């Protein structure tokens, strides 16, 4: 079917809004942003559950839950949790530092994804170890986008 009501047919909106203007994040800029956190230390896969629905109909509102396995006791804590993406204008999504009152190393929030891409979480533990997990998310964009009025 070609009714002409495609993303390209409309001015304004999400696709135009996020994509073409900035030098977008790329897998390489995401890797660099991650290296700013990890330095040359080894990063192991595991201990993180990164939960995002694999198919998202509008990239403006993407529910995300991240949980790191940890007792959150003095001896075994997650000190920080970072989330990155590949294709938004910037690779950073958010960073959380957990304090002594944190009951779990877990948050839920909503993020924007400008396109189908990978989202990566990195956790820093109190023993200095680093853990990571990634997830691929497919984003379809709302078709009839509000024109600039």
């Amino acid at each position: 079917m070609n009714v002409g009501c495609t993303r390209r047919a409309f001015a304004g909106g999400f696709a135009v809004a996020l994509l073409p203007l900035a030098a977008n994040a790329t897998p390489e800029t995401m890797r660099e942003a991650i290296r700013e956190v990890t330095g040359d230390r080894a990063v192991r896969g595991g201990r993180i559950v990164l939960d995002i629905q694999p198919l998202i109909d509008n990239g403006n509102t993407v529910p995300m839950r991240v949980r790191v396995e940890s007792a959150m006791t003095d001896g075994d804590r997650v000190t920080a949790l970072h989330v990155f993406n590949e294709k938004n204008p910037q690779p950073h999504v958010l960073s959380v530092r957990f304090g002594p009152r944190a009951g779990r190393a877990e948050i839920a929030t909503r993020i924007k994804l400008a396109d189908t891409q990978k989202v990566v979480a990195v956790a820093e533990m109190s023993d200095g170890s680093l853990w990571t997990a990634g997830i691929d998310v497919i984003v379809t964009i709302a078709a009839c986008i509000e024109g600039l009025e």
Partner: protein
Amino acid sequence: MAAPLVNAPKRVRRGEVFEVRTLISHPMETGFRPGTNGTIIPRDIIEHVRCRFAGETVLDMALSPAVSANPYLVFYVRADAGGALEMEWTGDKGFSASYSTAIVVE
């Protein structure tokens, strides 16, 4: 702008981990979008959300423009002693909002 909405229990048992859910009105303008006249709408985001319970830090979150408008945040607090649950949101253009509620630990 509406006051932030915070959903937390009023009473919890000592040592219990409880959930806090928060919502706040904010455009989270990315700074990458063109406005009607073609020029970029300046960035306007919440940069930090902080939570303390009974005087100690629960978390300090740094947000980027990739966090959705009207930020929603769920997190977990350990109730070792009762006290005030204090939230603070700060951001661009001097944005600042706060919320405080007493939670009884029994």
